[in-house]
């Protein structure tokens, strides 16, 4: 059984006409240890679907089930800081903090029990290909690829079962894109994570196990 299941999911904006859905009757299932791509044209509702999966929005129809539990009945803040890691195209890191502080903040929020948070953060940075030297830099002093690696490290900091990424390589060059995809692949295959990537990149689609098209 999948860790995440979408049952007849539909979404309509509040002020939209009754029959005007962004999408409806979506039935997807996601399992741990696999990489998924959600593909679609611009305006097809990819990011909206991401927001439903991450609990930032609630579906107007159907259910999003995490580990068999309806997200509507769950504490979504807890869900976001424990069960699912989010990686955005524009990284969404706090620019006032250093790279390591961004990761530690995420650990603090999730209340994950780690003896030495700094050590763990450095370990995570190392796993995404960043050195200790990067850790002390302010976010804006890092390149796009480095920021995206920090974002991935942050999403891993509380060891979630699912990592969802919205166009994670959209702002990156081909070389960096393939490095990031390698990290995701490693996480899915070696760390048993469920990786969901919202994308319109063919390279990403080629790298994943399952593609869902909106």
């Amino acid at each position, binding site marked *: 059984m999948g860790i995440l299941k979408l049952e007849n999911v539909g979404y309509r904006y509040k002020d939209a006409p009754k029959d005007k859905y962004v999408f409806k009757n979506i039935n997807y299932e996601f399992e741990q240890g696999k990489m998924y791509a959600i593909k679609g044209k611009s305006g097809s509702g990819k990011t909206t679907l991401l927001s439903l999966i991450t609990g930032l929005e609630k579906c107007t129809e159907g259910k999003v089930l995490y580990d068999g539990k309806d997200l509507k009945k769950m504490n979504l803040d807890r869900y976001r800081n424990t069960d699912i890691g989010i990686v955005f195209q524009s990284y*969404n890191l706090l620019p006032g903090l250093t790279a390591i502080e961004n990761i530690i903040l995420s650990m603090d929020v999730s209340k994950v029990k780690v003896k030495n948070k700094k050590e763990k953060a450095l370990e995570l940075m190392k796993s995404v290909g960043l050195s200790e030297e990067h850790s002390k830099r302010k976010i804006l002093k890092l390149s796009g690829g480095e920021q995206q690696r920090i974002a991935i490290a942050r999403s891993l900091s509380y060891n979630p079962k699912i990592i969802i990424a919205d166009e994670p390589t959209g702002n990156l060059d081909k070389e960096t894109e393939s490095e990031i995809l390698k990290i995701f692949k490693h996480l899915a295959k070696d760390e048993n994570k469920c990786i969901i990537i919202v994308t319109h990149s063919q390279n990403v689609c080629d790298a994943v196990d399952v593609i869902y098209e909106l």
Partner: protein
Amino acid sequence: MYILKNSFLSIIRNKGRNILIGIIILVIAASSTVTLAIRNTANNLVKNYEESHDIIASIAFNRQELSHNFEGGEDARKENIEAFNEIEQITLEDIKKYGESSYLKDYYYYIATSLNSDTLSKASDSYEYEVEDKKTTTSTTTSGPSGNMPPMGKGGNRQMVTRNNTTVITKSKETFQSSRNLTGDFELDGYSSYDAMTDFTNGIYKVTDGEMISDFSAFECVISSELATLNKVKVGDTIKLKNPTTKDTYDFVVKGIYEDNSEQDDAVNMYSPSANKIITGSEVIQKLIKDDDTLVTNTTPSFVLQNKDVIEEFTEEVKSKGLSDYYTVNTNVDELESATQSISNVKTFATMFLVITLIISAIVLLVINMINIRERKYEIGVYRTIGVSKFKLTMQFVLELLIVAIIMLGIGAVCGTFLAKPVGNILLENEIESSKASQEEISNNFGKGGRMDMKFGGVVNIQPVDKIEAVVDFTVIAELVGIGVFLTVISSLASMISIQRFSPLTILKERS
């Protein structure tokens, strides 16, 4: 816990913004400390003043009511005095009856009478009027040729007899005076207790030789220094006083001699008004009344009220117990309030200033925070996407402001502590100056040339408050903390509302 840590870190990271907020809070804190210290100290001063000065009620003639019975014109004056004499006097029994009221803490009285002396004259409300006495006399004159004797027989010389009527009007003055007037030369005041001797408690009179009477029923007395000097009387001597009607004499042992310290601006009389005043116990006067029930006495009661809120109730009670409408109950409340007027004005000013400062600063902080929240919208979005709840995020923003507020309130309280006393005294000084200027103006209107010796009513002499020792105490600190919390909550409203309204995805999309 991470919320607190994040708040501290955020304050350090955003120094510029927090220094600006801090300066505003510092100004608010310092001014609030000063105004709170002044307000609370003024409050305590007024409260202590009211507690240390009893509310005294006295009974006096209601002249407005009296004037309704009086008729105008010179001819009616005698009738008016007669009508005045008809009004029942307040007796000692009445006073004792009123004194049983539960609205009272205590009551006392003094009975004034007068005994004779051959030396000094006194002022009295006597009425002198003219009386006309008409007397007509008739005289007869005869004129004719012979002698002086008028011829009565027939055929004699004719004589003329003339009758003259002469009217002589004699005008004299008669004095008519109220039966209530003390006609003797010496005023003998019999006090029921030491409390009743307000002139002594207020320091107007002071025993300078010997001591005050201790037995209120013994024929002991205290006399004025002027009377003592004039008559070469010493403490321990016995003086003889005489009932002006029955001529009975009474021996009084002089226990003490007092001096009148009241300001004298009388350039007419040789002696002070208190020169003939002899002080004794009220029971002594009652003994005199027992000997002669026609002895004229005036009884002046003073009722010590529980507080100023029971004045109306007490007045109603004494009216229901039979006090005539020709009498009115007066109190020293106005005088007490006027003594603390300046400080009350300073208190009002401080309160107004505090309220205005708080309103303005709350608005300024609210605006700064609204701008702040707009700047930190992205931060809110990131926090929300990584799973920080709205409540915790709000708490973090409130805590940031609260930490700055607490630090600045502390510094402000220290600054305010040093400023409170001098600022308070400057304000009070200005208020007293302005009050004096307005009183001088009133005094000038009375042709008094700005001398500050005019008193407008009141039962006892009360010293006004002219110094304020504004102190920053626990109450001020507690109120200051309250203000800090209030301002923090008010100015955090912007962040509270924004965090509830913001959709993290929208924020992040906007940013992208």
